[in-house]
């Protein structure tokens, strides 16, 4: 998880932020390694954007500590941290009357990047907007504006890039373009902290994800989280109901239990799917069953997310 001298790109310990009585997020701890794409998921109002703003030194934490791009998160270090990171907020916030190039020139100077012309050209090339450099931002579509905002975030060659809902409100084609850009950045070794509502986006792009719902509910690789929350299972479909399903599935190697799933469907809980799948297949054939399909039950990141968020909802109700 770490690298580059053994320190994490982001290290957060017990971080909390309150606005008066309202808790934005509480006791959040995680680490993000160099070059990692880290997904930060959570429902509306979970504290994702506030976390990004806190780590980006825009707002001060109420308690806890963090190290951002190797620099401790303190008020004195605000400028130094902002020099090493960049944040793409949810709304692009471009100067609409200025051209794309003028927007980037302004930010190249704010970041004090050396050789700004070359850096702007590179940033525009990476988001495929070189031919729109002279257009005013007000004349661009939402997707293109998002790309300009991404180019702006790339200008300082950040050690950590925070992307806050980068595909919010984009159509599928524009969202796919942003995904491709994130993939390219990942291949370039940029550490990315991605907040998103789109679970398929997180599943596809992120090495690890954290689920926040004011408190941090879980952190891990998407497959790890699935394994942690859901038992592995095989789904069996037969043409006709099995006369004695218990006799077929009980006692097989790697099989922990089973349940019916419709008149001709069975879900077989397994501890070791490599051992269980061939054994279940053989048992079904031996029992003379006409098998339609045997497949592994795949839980998506969405299942994990919904499970955790609904647990929170239930806890609040009780």
């Amino acid at each position: 998880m770490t690298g580059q001298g053994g320190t994490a790109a982001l290290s957060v310990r017990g971080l909390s932020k309150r606005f008066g009585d309202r808790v934005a997020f509480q006791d959040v701890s995680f680490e993000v390694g160099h070059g990692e794409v880290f997904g930060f998921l959570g429902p509306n109002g979970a504290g994702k954007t506030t976390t990004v703003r806190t780590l980006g030194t825009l707002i001060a934490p109420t308690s806890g500590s963090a190290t951002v791009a190797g620099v401790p998160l303190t008020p004195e270090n605000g400028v130094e941290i902002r020099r090493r990171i960049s944040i793409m907020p949810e709304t692009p916030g471009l100067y609409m009357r200025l051209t794309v190039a003028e927007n980037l020139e302004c930010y190249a100077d704010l970041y004090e990047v050396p050789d700004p012309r070359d850096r702007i050209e590179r940033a525009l090339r990476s988001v495929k907007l070189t031919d729109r450099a002279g257009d005013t931002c007000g004349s661009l579509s939402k997707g293109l504006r998002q790309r300009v905002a991404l180019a702006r975030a790339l200008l300082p060659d950040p050690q950590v890039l925070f992307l806050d809902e980068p595909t919010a409100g984009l159509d599928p084609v524009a969202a796919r373009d942003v995904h491709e850009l994130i993939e390219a950045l990942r291949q370039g070794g940029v550490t990315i902290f991605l907040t998103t509502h789109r679970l398929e986006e997180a599943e596809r792009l992120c090495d690890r994800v954290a689920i926040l719902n004011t408190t941090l509910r879980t952190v891990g690789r998407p497959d790890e989280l699935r394994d942690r929350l859901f038992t592995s299972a095989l789904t069996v479909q037969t043409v006709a109901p099995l006369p004695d399903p218990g006799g077929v599935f009980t006692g097989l190697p790697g099989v922990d239990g089973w349940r019916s799933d419709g008149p001709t469907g069975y879900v077989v809980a397994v501890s070791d799917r490599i051992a269980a799948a061939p054994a279940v297949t053989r048992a079904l054939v031996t029992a003379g069953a006409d098998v339609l399909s045997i497949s592994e039950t795949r839980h998506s990141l969405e299942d994990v997310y919904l499970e955790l968020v609904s647990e929170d909802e239930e806890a609040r109700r009780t």
Partner: protein
Amino acid sequence: MMMLLGRRASTGRADGSGQLSRRRVRAIVRKEFREYRRKGTIVYGMVIFPIIFLIQPLVSVFALGSSAASQLANRHELLYLLGIPALVPATLAGYAVVGERQQGTLEPVLTTPIRRGEFLLGKALACFVPSVAIAYAVFALFVALVELFAQPGVAPALLQGSDVIAQLVFTPLLAGWSIWIGIAISTRASEVRVAQQLGLLANLPSVAVTTLIAVGVIHASLAIAIGGVVLLLVLNRLGWRLTSAMFDRERLITGS
């Protein structure tokens, strides 16, 4: 503007301390100038007050006959034009922070390494330069029109050396004060229009004082002039500090 603030601007708190980057200040100024050029309403706003302030003294000066020129020795009609540097920057400064906030452009700027002082100084300079330029241009136009079209004897009586010097000295000082008040209001206002109106209101005392001197109610003297310069220098310094203290990233971003 830097001269008005002292040798090195420091805002005292963590984010504001340290050497200010000229490049970042320049980036803000250049961005503002580009926006002015492309937004007609900003230019109209800058032009409308000078026109109002030019008409009244021109009408009263043109109405004077040669025989009335002697009356001007006790009046300081030129100082009436000092209302321009007091009011022109107020609308620009009122927009400076809350305008960016409403457009959604403030947060991305504040995510860069820019310091509070650099941002505020950039904004202030972007208001200061056109305001002072317009005030001087209107003054030059007024002088030219008086020289060309006023009755004989009026121009030499009106254009007293001390009033011209006062115009040159007080224009940047009044503009600076107006800008700091305007930006300070802009950091706390929730709407551009409210910020601009409050900014104009806050500068009415300056306009009232210059007008009272212009019409002879307050007797102009060297002591009053020196006192005015010192007072405005102090107010500019205080305005800078006050604005820096009021500029709170967290409140501006979260609105809380």
